[in-house]
């Protein structure tokens, strides 16, 4: 709902572009002198319900003006403890990437992460929700900029009634990830069959494109993490929230998150 209201506000702006043409609005790339608070630890920990390798990646943030290459944090002690108290040590499979194998996380189980690096211990915990099936992924004609059959991607699923569910979607067009965060909860749609448009203006989608959508089931703190990031990306006219580092489940403070989530994917060729 929040997203749909945002979408409508976003749609206003498409209409307002006409106004912008009258007023000759313009954008330009500018140089800004930005302070540099680089070198902070970034943790990206994921436990999924899929059998196989699970990864926790450690890196550091870099100044805004650097290239998008992030120094890995190596030599850390990383472990994950499952519901039964079993400790899984993660081995560093490549610089900054730590891994262990499981038969897949189990719904309702709470996983704890411990990281020791540079004399500091970080911990976080996350609970894997029950899987909600992704029914289908379809493409429909876009309501905006719809010349040449430009398409919007729609995800369809049945939200289970009576329990709080949180979802995140990741979309790839011809194997390139769309630069947008999509996350939804069921505050306004508990128990409903949903058909949600994944709005974006990053890559235009036309017939013949291959689109993959990954659907994740999240616990509440991780939803809050992604939701905060999603709010911050809606900047531009119409306004955004004041940006900040999103609240996460890691103590003491570090950037990133530790998420135990379900995952499933579907790939379609747009017709």
């Amino acid at each position, binding site marked *: *709902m*929040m997203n*749909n*209201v945002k979408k*409508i*506000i976003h*749609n206003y702006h498409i*209409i*307002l572009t*006409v106004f912008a043409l009258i007023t*000759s*609005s*313009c*954008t*330009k*790339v500018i*140089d*800004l002198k930005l*302070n*540099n*608070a*680089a070198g*902070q630890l*970034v943790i*990206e920990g994921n436990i999924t319900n899929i059998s196989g390798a699970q990864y926790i990646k450690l890196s550091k943030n*870099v*100044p*805004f*003006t*650097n290239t*998008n290459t*992030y120094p890995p944090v190596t030599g850390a002690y990383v472990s994950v403890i499952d519901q039964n108290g079993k400790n899984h040590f993660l081995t560093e499979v490549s610089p900054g990437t730590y891994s262990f194998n499981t038969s897949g996380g189990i719904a309702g189980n709470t996983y704890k992460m411990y990281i020791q690096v540079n004399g500091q211990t970080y911990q976080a915990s996350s609970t894997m929700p029950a899987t909600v099936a992704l029914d289908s992924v379809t493409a429909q004609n876009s*309501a*905006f900029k*719809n*010349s040449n059959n430009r398409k919007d991607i*729609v995800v369809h699923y049945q939200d289970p009634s009576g329990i709080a569910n949180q979802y995140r979607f*990741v979309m790839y067009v011809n194997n390139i*990830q769309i*630069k947008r965060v999509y996350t939804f909860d069921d505050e*306004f749609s508990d128990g*409903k*069959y*949903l*058909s*949600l448009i994944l709005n974006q203006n990053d890559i235009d989608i036309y017939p013949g494109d291959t689109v993959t959508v990954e659907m994740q089931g999240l616990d509440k703190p991780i939803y809050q*993490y992604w939701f905060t990031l999603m*709010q911050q990306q809606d*900047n*531009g*006219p*119409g306004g*955004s*929230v*004041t*940006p*900040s580092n*999103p609240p996460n489940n890691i103590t003491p403070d570090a*950037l*990133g998150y530790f998420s135990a989530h379900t995952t499933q994917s579907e790939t379609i060729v747009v017709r």
Partner: protein
Amino acid sequence: MFKFSILFSLLFTTFYSFGQKKFTISGTIKDEATGETLIGATIRLKELPQNSTATNSYGFYSLTAPRNDYTLLISYTGYETASRLVSLTQSHTLNISLSAKNVLKEVVISSNKPNNDNVASPQMGAEKLNMTQINNVPVLLGEKDILKTITLLPGIKSASEGNTGFYVRGGASDQNLILLDEATVYNASHLFGFFSTFNSDAIKDVSIYKGGMPAEYGGRLSSVLDIKMNEGNNKDYTVQGGLGLISSRLKIEGPIIKDKGSFMISARRTYIDLFFKASSDTTLKGSTLYFYDLNAKANYHFDDKNAVYLSGYFGKDVLGLKNTFGTNWGNSTGTLRFNHLFNNRLFSNTSLVYSNYNYVIQSFESNDNFKATSKITDINLKEDLQYSMGNNHTLKFGVNILHHSIAPGDITTSQASSFNSKHVEQRYGFENAAYVSDEWRASDKLTILYGLRLSDMMLLGPGTFKTYDAAGNTLTSATYGSGAIVKNYFALEPRISASYMLDDENSIKASYNRNTQNIHLLSNSTSSSPTDLYVLSSNNIKPEIADQVSTGLFKNFKDNTYEFSAEVYYKWLQNQIDYKDGAQLIVNQDVESLLTYGTGRAYGLELFLKKKYGRFNGWIGYTLSRTERKFNAINNGDYYPATQDRTHDLSVVGIYSITKRWTLSSTFIYGTGNAVTYPTGKYNIGGLTTYSYSGRNGYREPSTNRLDIGATLEGKEHKKYHSSWTFGIYNVYGHKNPYTITFRDSKTVPNTSEAVETSIFGTAIPSITWNFKFQ
């Protein structure tokens, strides 16, 4: 209570100090041509210059003096000063009409001296705008706009380029009380703030108070913008209007019964959507985008003692795309007023005021259809009395009972929709107040305006009311029946200001005032949005409180043709509201769990030089200020600059009548950029470049500056018909002022990031408007 008793003992000891036998002259001051009453006209006795008064909001004055023969002088900006010989041997009524003056003639009429009211009055932090001036200030796309014009005054800052939102002395935009004929206007903007809801055709008088608020106003922390609509010509019928680039206006006014009653109807509608119909793009072809305003007013004077006024405003923005979505939002207000003169010293006004703001957002797409609505409705019953005591005291006192009902949000959906219907409980409350104030001319040099406002806020059932801890978890939950008092907040708001005349042209003034606010806007977007949500003070939200002290030097020179003032102020703010990260405010029953509370402070220096009279007039305003907020969770609990903190703010306005027919005008603004939060680093998460931040509002947007020019060509004079052309160029030198600055992966250099500045106005924007008038 202690302060209260001092105040009253002070009032009553002065009550009975009558000496010599005195008589009262009273009446109404009007425009000769239209019969419109004039607000704030000065009436003084030539023989007793200190004994002066000004007309109230209804043009009424009352002046008391010892038995004698006097010359009564009546003056009003933009009008010829009138004089009348009066023999005060008994109390009587004298209604006087003033004629508007021709600017070009003025320079040669030396008898027409401007007065020194601005220096002598104890009121400070206030400014009255002249509609002629507003009409001459060049504006975006030729749409004359009160809200944009007031941001050219010191201490008042525009929210952003092309936006009608404004901040007064460091206050937030919801801390301004915007009144249209006494009715609160909750959302004063059209089209996301590009235009204001005030059609200047329908406006008669604009006063703004940024400090030293008189006790009759209350309910907001930062300012009062008091706008009065025209009453309508009670002599002749006239039709006037204008054709502009984006909108057209039409106003009809005339007598209902000549000299007794009149009406005025004024309407405006935009036609940007016509461009859409011409577009080849199917999306645009199906789009709707317009707004309209309708102002109407009628009055009838039964006799010299009784008059009734009825006025209303109705405005709406409509925006949509066929079969996809539709939205509309707008205000409606209505005011019914009854003036009664008990005797020639006691004036009474009774008002019944209605105010409503609502929005509707609809999605028509079959699988995610919904309709979301929200509204706020106020009903206010007010009684205001003004008593001229004749012994250098003018008392004002009154009461009001204001009922709020707020429907924060409802969602209705069809069965096929992806969404459920949802209802958030309505909230009800009373904001009641009583006030008394006295303007006391203590000596020839010293005038004191002091008063007290008692305000009471009651949050009422029915409903379930919760309290939350700092983390947002529910602590208690209680259900109340209809009309049960959930929470009551009582506040005493003392107000005092004083002026001390150093000589005829110089004075010093000082003031202190406390204001409280019990209705709060929740919006975590940076610009005006139709989904603005208001909440009342509650178990969780305490009343916002502001204490302001200010002092200043007021100086006139060259026979009062130039006014200069320097004011400094300091303001303390308590119980300010901010939002937790990731707050979802829309249609949320537990919205109060997402709030955090803090304090603020604002201080500054305002310099203002104004030339009110002559062929060349205008002003220069400069503000040096600082505005800070303090919240435990932000920046380690240290003070940080608020978004609207603007160190320097400069406005220059010049209007020049070259000939009888040509008037040129120009404005220039410069301001320090907003305080903003920029990234201090970046990292990769979930495959996306993500930015890291250290603290809030640590950066500045680039400074803004802009020059606008305008010209008005008056048509040749006809008996029955008049026309004029208004030309304007907004942003003459095409400066690209920043609107937003965003960060993204570079589109040109792979694997790097870039900052992108968006400017709404990238070039000069010309405009042309044709205005006409038949009578």
